[in-house]
């Protein structure tokens, strides 16, 4: 009984950590620009695809990872520079369509540059399952969870301890005030895209040994990441993590105890219910309209 529950929780934790990483990317860009970047999933895809293609071409894994991260960050910066910045003063919906266009474009690019096959990476530390109280866990899942934790700590440090990170936070609270304080909003925007691209790439790389990747892998991860970020409360990093874990664990428990066909539906029903009672997500700011 308990072993069963534990196994479901492990399953949920693995998926949840993946969703959380995807959600964090949304949170960072939202914070800096109030833009929802629907191409976030494509960052994840590019990270995973680039790494596995380079490994397949004979590069050692660490080098492939480093190069893939750089490539993804360049894509992120290019996206910001050429698509988001020129439209900075447009409607939210307009920018959303731009990012959707970008995601279609990047998927198209990946399918032309690479291919349409599924690709994998060797697990970082073997494929021997770890047994815990009758339930099993793959070492790669621990990598995913571990990297997530590391990323959260690093982000916390960046936003609370470095000058630039603080400046970015300030921009999210009040763009005008930040501008008056001499913070370059453009630069903040660019760094936020680079950062979330980095996050996406790292996420894409650590999950590829588990979920594999192909040019369309970003669609589902992007969707789940968005759900995680909204459930947690937009712009809240911790919220995105909790949101991702809630979605992942809800799915696993639903397929274990209810119906695997309806597990995604269960996750969305939970999100809807949370939003009915907490219209700004779990940790979102309860803003009262100033009138």
């Amino acid at each position, binding site marked *: 009984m308990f072993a069963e529950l534990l196994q*479901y929780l492990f399953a949920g934790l*693995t998926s949840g950590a993946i969703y959380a990483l995807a959600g964090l990317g949304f949170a960072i860009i939202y914070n800096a620009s109030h833009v929802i970047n629907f191409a976030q999933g494509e960052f994840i895809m590019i990270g995973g695809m680039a790494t596995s293609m380079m490994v397949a071409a004979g590069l050692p894994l660490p080098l492939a990872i480093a190069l893939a991260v750089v490539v993804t960050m360049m894509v992120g910066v290019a996206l910001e520079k050429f698509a988001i910045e020129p439209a900075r003063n447009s409607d939210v919906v307009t920018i959303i369509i731009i990012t959707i266009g970008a995601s279609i474009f990047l998927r198209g690019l990946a399918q032309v540059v690479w291919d349409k*096959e599924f690709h994998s990476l060797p697990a970082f530390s073997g494929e021997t399952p770890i047994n815990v109280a009758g339930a099993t866990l793959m070492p790669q899942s621990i990598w995913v969870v571990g990297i997530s934790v590391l990323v959260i700590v690093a982000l916390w440090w960046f936003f609370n301890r470095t000058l630039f990170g603080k400046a970015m936070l300030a921009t999210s609270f009040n763009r005008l005030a930040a501008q008056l304080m001499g913070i370059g909003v453009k630069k903040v925007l660019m760094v936020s895209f680079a950062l979330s691209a980095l996050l996406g790439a790292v996420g894409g790389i650590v999950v590829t040994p588990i979920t594999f990747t192909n040019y369309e892998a970003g669609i589902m991860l992007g969707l789940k990441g968005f759900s995680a970020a909204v459930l947690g409360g937009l712009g809240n990093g911790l919220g995105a993590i909790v949101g991702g874990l809630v979605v992942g664990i809800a*799915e696993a*428990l639903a*397929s274990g105890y209810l119906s695997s066909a309806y597990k995604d539906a269960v996750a969305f029903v939970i999100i809807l219910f949370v939003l009915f009672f907490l219209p700004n997500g779990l940790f979102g700011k309860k803003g009262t309209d100033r009138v």
Partner: protein
Amino acid sequence: MRSLVKWGVAACAVFAAGTFAGTAQAADTIKIGAFLSVTGPASFLGEPEKKTLEMYVDRLNKDGGVRGKKVELIHYDDAGAPDKAVTFAKRLIQNDNVDIIIGGTTTGTSMAAIKVVEPAGVPFISLAGGIDIIDPVKKWVFKTPHTDRMAAEKVFLDMKKKGISKVAMISEDAGFGKSGHDQSLKVAPIYGIQIVADEVYSPKDPDVTAQLTKIKNTAGVQAVFNFGFGQGPAIVTKNFKQLGMSVPLYQSHGVASKDFIKLAGEAAEGIRLPAAGLVVAEQLGATDPQKPVVTAFKKEYEAAFKSDVSTFAGHAYDGLQIALAAILRAGSTDKEKVRAEIEKTSGYVGTGGLVSMSPEDHMGLSLSAFRMVEVKKGDWVLAD
């Protein structure tokens, strides 16, 4: 409001220009139309299908075409969407005036296109697995791949031989897996198989250990049967191993390509599945009539594209060969004649097996076309 008119005219002009481009009527060509899911969730089926058609049509033309006529291939990407398939089928028939249609990568797109093809009276060879495509028989519709029902039958036959009677199913909740799942449930009783657990997953799920745990904890499961394609079955396979499940794991013909073994890695060892002779080309007996065909196709495909051949490429190859042979026999591209000749296809040796069609059977494959294979040391091994 003039702008509206202007834009309307401009749009129509662009539209017309785009659709007429490249379809200039050449009198002496045989036009083969294809709508395939080259992008979208079934792209790794559609892509090799497209490549195969292109390669062989090219080769054919270099060799002088069919009876001195060039063959023109017109293909569109339906992205796996049935409504797009309908539109492209119409485009092929009405606008491109093709003589025959090959395609429909998925059962959904094929079924949708049938609504257009049947009334228009154009021979149509589908490359999708669903049995609904040819059962009941439709006058103009044929197909080359084995049906999902056959795959299930082959698997259950193998299980029966091994004395397995209680089976857990886990299937993908998208088209291929869902249809395969339904057919499996239908034929299981015939082979004395009892489905004691029945789980599903979505094509892009990162983890299915929850579903497998449920199966693991179901009493009396003697084997697990997974119906799906894409990366899902590889994840199932990995999770299966992770949970230390020891019963035999069967997969469907949907994963019969080297890529699957690459993705699933060591976890794939010992997996059994029904597959066409193509994946075990070299291991076929020397007297096997399929041997020369599949070895040649495999060699040509792999030389041309530097990637492992998949059964899906084979389906397209078979479709093309059957079509061309029928056109040759008919002596013209008269649609009714070609249709009749396709129906008379007999003893064609293809990558999928021996094809003998009849007015009652528009697929013409028998269960013997499937071979049971097992993964051993990272490769497919004939296990019959």
